[in-house]
């Protein structure tokens, strides 16, 4: 539809030039700033308010924290990305009841199984958001997109040192403003809806539970 493109752009370009836009004062974004320890507290508070569950860990023991949780909850299998550092570390240390399922082939090969038989998915994160609560994920070849979406339980590994002040500062610090992978996202809790009489209900399409394994690596 090149005619449509040309016509639209011509009409837009023909519009009379408006005055200069108002000045942009970003102080309101920049002053959202907290010390590292407080960032952890804020993130937890924000995410727990929307029913995210937290498990505490230290850098050396997080795989066993994940494993104990799975055993305790009777999770039969856990889907993970073998290509990611954290995924590989989890597999190396794994000695749990649940079967570890590597997400190592195109989804077409096991789509029905993914939707009907997988109990939980494990992913790493690239950061967190202190201001509102939230974790940042960059799915890709190592950790496919549906890992954090289709299984009813999503277990995410978050290192306290990677928690940013706000989405605004995270965009700058992670370099997201320059280039982005095919998919990146922020998650603040399990899937929810308030479409029936504004009554909050969790687990509508995505995960019913979000478990954040919070690794305290602050010095």
């Amino acid at each position, binding site marked *: 539809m090149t005619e449509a493109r040309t016509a639209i752009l011509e009409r837009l370009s023909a519009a009379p030039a408006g005055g200069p836009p108002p000045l*942009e004062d970003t102080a309101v974004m920049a002053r959202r700033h907290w010390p590292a320890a407080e960032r952890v507290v804020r993130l937890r508070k924000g995410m727990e308010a929307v029913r995210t569950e937290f498990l505490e860990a230290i850098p050396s023991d997080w795989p066993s924290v994940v494993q104990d949780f799975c055993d305790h909850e009777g999770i039969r299998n856990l889907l993970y990305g073998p290509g990611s550092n954290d995924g590989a570390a989890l597999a190396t240390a794994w000695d749990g009841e649940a079967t570890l399922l590597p997400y190592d082939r195109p989804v077409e090969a096991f789509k029905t199984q993914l939707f009907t038989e997988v109990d939980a998915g494990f992913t790493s994160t690239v950061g967190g958001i202190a201001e509102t609560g939230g974790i940042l994920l960059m799915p890709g070849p190592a950790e496919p997109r549906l890992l954090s979406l289709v299984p009813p339980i999503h277990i995410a590994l978050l290192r306290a040192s990677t928690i940013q002040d*706000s989405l605004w500062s995270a965009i700058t610090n992670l370099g997201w403003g320059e280039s982005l992978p*095919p998919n990146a996202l922020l998650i603040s809790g399990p899937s929810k809806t308030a479409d029936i009489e504004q009554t909050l209900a969790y687990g509508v399409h995505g995960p019913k539970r979000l478990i954040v394994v919070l690794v305290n690596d602050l010095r």
Partner: protein
Amino acid sequence: MHAETDILFRESAAKALLDPQLRANFRRAMDGLITKRKAQFPDPEDLQELRHLSTAIRSRSLLNLPALLVQLEAACTRNGIQVHWAETCEQANQLVLDILQAQGATRLVKGKSMVSEEMHLNAFLESHGIEALESDLGEYIIQLDGETPSHIIMPAIHKNKDQIARQFSQKIKDAKYTEDVDELTAMARKVLRQKFLEADAGISGVNFAVANTGTLCLVENEGNGRMSTHVPPLHIAIMGLEKVVARLEDVAPLYAILTRSATGQAVSTYFNLISGPRGEGEKDGPQAVHLVILDNGRSRIYGDPQLQATLRCIRCGACMNHCPVYTRVGGHAYEATYPGPIGKILTPQMEGVGVRHDLLHGSSLCGACGEVCPVEIPIPDILVRLRREATHQDPASSVAGKGTGRTDAEDRAWRLWAALSKRPGLYRIVTWFATRFGWALPSGAPLLRDWTRFRTKPVPARRSLSERMRAERGSHD
């Protein structure tokens, strides 16, 4: 009189006012949304700063709109997203159909998209044998009943849970009757997960499109947006051409004010950034992503410096939540894709101020909408401007249907008044009769009838103003 094609808001509003269930549903929902939004902005100065910043960002984006669209197209293309342009809804519908047919897609899941509502896409696709299933819970509920959204954020807000419980038990296979919201949600989850699994294609809207990185931003809570855009092998995103911003940094303040204004949330469950189809080495995600950029009257609105502010809108719905008219009549009374205050200024500009003249007057001009708007759109001012556009033929104006809202009766009345004003003698005679015998006019007389339905008949003063002025002056001499 009004032309037969005119859509009369006063008639549908009057009907809606007689439905106590509807009014109760809206009152409760809007009160809840107002309270939740307020709680998110505890510091009024902080709110004003964020509003000014958001307004400035949207204004700058519009100022550079044609260049940003070209940049967005180039960045998307580089990322492997195929970009299409449509001047009209018909063109956009055809584009979507062509893409689907080229893939042999017949089963479609949809994330929430108001632009697709604007296009009446579902009906169009269904007439071509393609199942288009809404997957946002609210949209799913209204689709079961063949309804349209009554609110841009909460499409099924006009229904209460008893109504939804009855509807589910009748329309979903093997569903039992329950009024438990968790159980109702679980029923929809079960049906829709199967649909996501089987879908040939997914359709979504776009909350913000980032020009420099070629990124489509989707804001949602349910996960159906992610399901629709990542599970099926084909994803088609549809956006109005005004949705583009220069860079991702621009999105952060807009996102912060959007979720707070819309549902009183500091953050949504998901904020999803899509910058391409399944990449090298990726094991999931759609094989192809298409972006359809729709005009449908927006470029005409863009041509007017004052009306251009309409395009700043980020579709949060705060104006409808705070509108005394919307809260009483509900969204369907507007008979438009976009109801409430923003719809009142957007719909007439898209469809013509003549046919939608009535909508322009369905407002008390209380100003609440302008006050809560996160991007400071002067909705009341634009409404007043459009009222004038509807009855005047300004040659410099680019407003659709300008001047066509003037009725014959109105036209005759003004001509009579003009003729009288030019003839002082005749004017004096007419006002003399009107002041002395105006009381004798029956309250059922044409034009007067509308006034006397709810009010007592006005009685003209015994003497006209100019008579009294002359008398006053005489007494001072």
